Every structure is written in C-alpha cells, then in structure tokens.
C-alpha cells in the first residue's frame, strides 16, 4: 500500500459510506486524476466524482455552496501551487463563514504539495503556513501512509474546512504493509522516535529526512527525539513542550520557506512557554528563501536534507 493508494482508498471508503461526499477537481473523473488519486472512482460513483473546469476560485466556491446544502465535498487541486487561484474563496469565504454565520463549512481541499525532482517553481510548493495563518481553517500534513488514510477520512468528517497537504514525494516512495485500525485524532502530534538529547519537530516529507539523520546519529550514541506534527493547525504545543522538557534542545525542520512559517511558530511557542526548559537557543531549518529550483542538483540542496539536518543537530549539540 503506497501513500497515494491510501489517499485513493480513503476517498473510496468515504464515497462508499457517506452519500454526502463528492469529489470535484480537474481530470478527477474518468481519467482518475493527474496523479491517479481518484483512479476508478468515477466508474463506481459517476454522479459524485466530477471533472471541473480550470477554475480554482469557482471550484472552492462550488464546494462552499455544496457544504451549505449539507454535502461534504472534497476538492482536488491538481497541484497545491494552483490553490492560490482559489485563495480568496478558501481563506475569506470558507475560513470566515462559520464565524460570521454559525453555519459550518465541512469541505476538504486536497493539496498535492512539496517538491519532487525536476518539478520547478510552480509544481513544488508547500503552502501549509499561509493557510494556517488564516482563522477558521484546519491544516493537515500527513507524513505516513497510515496518516494519509486515516487523516483524510477524519478531514472529511470534520465539520470545518480542512486543507489536506499531501506530499507528492511520498506518493510512490512511501509504503506500508496495511492500513491502520486505530490512529491519533487530528490535532495530536506523534513522537515518531523517542530520544533524550534533542527534540526535532517536523512534519510531512521532512519527517523521513529527519528519521534518516536520527538513525545516523544513533550510531554515534546521540538520540534525537522526533516529533511528527501531523496537523500544523492546530499545533500540538503540549507534546512539543513535554519533549523539550526532556531534551532541553529544539530543532525545527520544514520544507517550506523560512519567513513566518510553521517552524517560526513552533520556536515562538517554545520560547514563550518553555524558555526555562531550553539549554541552548532553538534552531530551525527551512528551504532557501527563493522560488524552488528546477535542476535536480539545485533542488537537492534547496530544501533541508538528512545531511543538512545532521549538521544542524551537531551544531545544536556542539559536537
């Protein structure tokens, strides 16, 4: 079972068990989606897996209207990058509607996110921070096959707008034996690897780079405690602070841009609420503050990697 199949199967499960669910997006129908995340779904549910014109603003507006009428739409953006065309409907309309009217808007917007080799500036973005900035939105960033499945099901069940940031790099790379029977609820982070020396907070595809670095340091007798945020809004501050209380050190790793993002938020919370727990200044690593480069060699050093994470961890531990 790949991460991508988990997303497809979760949608199949949702369509099968909940008549309020429908999927709307470009090429999602008979073709099965640009990444095949809706493969064969239109055959089984022809009325509820629908091709949309290239109109992200109107797609999200349509979902909001359908939600007002009691449905639970899933919008597939072909790439997270194009969701900016629907930005107004997402942040100003969907995000503010419950606050303004007391009518909830249960929509899920799937954002195929993050970099892959050769994808370039406009097919690689990670936009979780910009959506998390706005009130009224839940932002999920699943890092595992299990979470891709169970969190997507939960996203659709949640009575509010959810941005589901699924990572394209993980689509085919990540595999699991079977789908989960139990999972943590949305809003709860997971200690992906326990350790005593340094807390590393991360999410989405970066989890796997961090785990690789942790594995390498382990052979030197250094233990990283790795926290997978799972949901970046809300942030599970308790789990983070509890870990920093054990390790006294914090490193944040994210694939998105540095200015004012998830890492900045985590560092800010730990500094404000757990300053006394810190034995060293907290550190964060992000992508470079440039558009995402096309050439694979450039791309490979644009975002954090196991190597750069390792170096940052060593610096923090002064080894």
């Amino acid at each position, binding site marked *: 079972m790949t991460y991508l199949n988990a997303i497809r199967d979760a949608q199949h499960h949702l369509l099968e068990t909940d*008549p309020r669910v*429908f999927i709307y997006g470009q090429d999602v129908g008979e073709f099965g989606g640009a990444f095949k995340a809706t493969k064969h779904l239109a055959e089984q549910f022809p*009325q*509820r897996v629908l091709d*949309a*014109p290239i*109109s*992200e*603003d*109107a*797609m*999200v*507006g*349509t*979902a*909001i*209207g*359908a*939600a*007002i*009428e*009691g*449905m639970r*739409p899933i919008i597939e953006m072909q790439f997270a990058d194009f969701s900016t*065309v629907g930005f*107004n*409907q997402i942040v*100003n*309309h969907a*995000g*503010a*509607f*419950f*606050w*303004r*009217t*007391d*009518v*909830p808007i249960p929509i899920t917007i799937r954002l195929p996110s993050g970099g892959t080799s050769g994808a370039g500036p406009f097919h690689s973005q990670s936009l979780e921070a910009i959506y998390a900035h706005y*009130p*009224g939105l*839940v932002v999920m960033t699943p890092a595992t096959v299990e979470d891709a499945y169970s969190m997507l099901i939960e996203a659709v069940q*949640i*009575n*509010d707008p959810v941005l589901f940031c699924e990572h394209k790099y993980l689509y085919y790379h990540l595999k699991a034996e079977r789908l989960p029977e139990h999972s943590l*609820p*949305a*809003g709860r982070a997971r200690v992906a690897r326990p350790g005593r020396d340094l807390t590393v907070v991360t999410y989405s595809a970066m989890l796997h780079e961090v785990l690789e670095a942790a594995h390498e340091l382990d052979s030197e007798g250094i233990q990283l405690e790795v926290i997978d945020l799972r*949901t970046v*809004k*809300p*942030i599970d501050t308790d789990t983070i602070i509890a870990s920093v209380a054990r390790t006294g050190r914090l490193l944040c790793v994210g694939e998105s841009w540095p200015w004012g993002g998830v890492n900045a938020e985590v560092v800010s919370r730990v500094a404000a609420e757990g300053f006394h727990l810190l034995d060293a200044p907290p550190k964060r690593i992000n992508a470079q503050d440039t558009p995402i480069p096309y050439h694979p060699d450039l791309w490979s050093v644009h975002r954090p990697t196991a190597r750069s994470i390792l170096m940052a961890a060593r610096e923090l531990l002064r080894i």
Partner: protein
Amino acid sequence: MGSREALEETTAAGGKTIDPLLQAYRWMLTARLLDEKLATLYRAGRIHGGVFMGKGQEALSVALGQGLQVTDIYAPLIRDGAGRLAFGETIHDALRNCLGSPQGPMRARDGNVHRGRPRQGYLPMLSHLGAMISVVGGMLMARRIQGKPVGVGATCLGDGGTSTGAFHEAINLAAVERLPLVLVIANNRYAYSTPTEKQFACHSLTDKAIGYGVDSHSVDGTDLMACRNTIFEAIDQARRGHGPQLVVADLLRLCGHGEHDDAPYIKDQLKASPLGRDCLEVAADQLLGERVATKNQIETIRQEIVESIETAVAEVSRESLPCLTHYDWCSLSTRRLADGVS
C-alpha cells in the same frame, strides 16, 4: 408566478389582498426610506464603517426578490435592500446588522450589507465582488447531486464586478453544468468612480453571454413593470431547464458609492438622460396608470412605512451590545481543533 407572490396576496398588511405591483412598490419605498434612515444614523455617528445605498436600483432589486420562491436561493449585493425585503428579510434584521446588534443575523460579527441567513437560502455577501456566484452554483449543484428539487439560484453584481476573475470562472462553470442560475447585472455606469469605459470593451454586457453560451436579457432598470417582466421571464427560463440566465439592466446610481461619497464624477449628462430617472417615481406613475393605487393610498403607505421604520429603530436601539467578557473567540465549529482556544 412564484409562490411568494401568491403568499403576499393573502398575507399583506391587515389581511387584505394586495396587488403584487403595489407590494413591489411598497418594498421599494421601504428600502428607500430605510436607506435614508441609515444615512441619518450614519451621519449621527450611530453606524460604524459605512452605509451603502440602493437609490435608483430599487425596481430592479425588488423584481428579483419578488420573482423568487422561498425554496430558491438568493445572494444579493450592495444595493439590494428592496430585493432583500421582498425575499423575506425584516426591517429589524437590516437595522440590527447596521447597528451591530448581537441579535442580528450576523451577531455583530459582520456589518451593513454583509448579512444573510444561509440556512434559509439567503446568503450573506462576501465583500470580494464576484465571489457569491460560484457559491450559489455550488448550492444548486449539491441539490442536483442529492436528487432534491433544485429550484433557482439568483445573485446580483455591478458593472464593475463583471471584470473579476471570479465572475468569469463562475458563470463559465454554471454554463458548463447548465445550472438554473439567474445573474442580474446592474449596469449603473460606475464602479465607485470608474466609468464603464475603463471596465469593459464589449459593446454591451449582454455580449458576454454569447461567449459563455448562456441566454441573456436586457432591461430598462428604471422601469418596475419592465424589470418584473424581464426578471420573472429569466427566472422562469432557468426553472424550466434552460441553464444560466444573464440579465443586464441599464440604470444610474442616484447616490454616492457610499454615504461618504458625494460622487462629483457622475456626469450631469447622464443624470439628465433617461437612465437618471428615479425608478420610484416611474413606479408610482405605473401604479396610478394601472389604477392599482391612488395618490392618497401611496401617501398612506409612505406614512405606514415611516412609522414601522421608526418603531424598528427604537426597538433595535434597545438591544444589548456585544458582551466582551468571556467572548467566544473560536472560529471553528469543532472546538477541540481551534488553535489556542480552550
């Protein structure tokens, strides 16, 4: 004719039957007098933010509100006080939203023209022009997917609003899906201070309908009877499965963009042209001409409306202010997922 009209024939003031044309006039006049009252309250410092009036657009607005049925969907815009009343909004709700009463439809969280009751198919406009069209479309699509009676969805826009990407995306999508959408454009010649020459280059806004593959209708927006005929026809066409209907009405904004604006940019030539006619006067002449009402009756109606507005202002003014202690700062319906809210 819609069930709303049937309803109004039996439930008009005093239990007497009232002619639909006279009822339309009544709502138009109520909207005009309410706007004037709001302007006074604004100048007196009782209304925060702004006041946006529909002066000159009441005939067009009321025709749409009156043509819809209670089960239809209505997403009015800035200058639709008359249509809102016709669709069932109360004077109290309109005032509450402007005075910021927590008992209003938006509970003091949003103000002035941004008001609605979505559960009743009456949508609160987003400020961002063009944004309501696709939402109305989504409601219609949802009803269709669920196999429910679809009805008609109607929304309004100004000449300026037709230049947005949201307008283009949404009308195109509605056309592709052949949704029963009625989109009424009030071409009042200006978007704030910008004249239509700087807004679009097509000869007529109805030309846009050709490109989208939808039906179009044009109407003199100062003429109540013409507006009723044209808009009722458009609603009927949509209801009978002919897809989206674009209605373009020609008129002139007879006021500033908002109460803060004395609109020196509106050309005298336009004001003196037929576009500059006051639709309320035209409607009153039509009532007299059709022998639906006498001058005395119209005057009595005016008195009744003035009284009901004064009463409503007094009542709404007594409503409580937002309570700031323990205010619920939670923007999600799923409380456990609200960041930082306990």
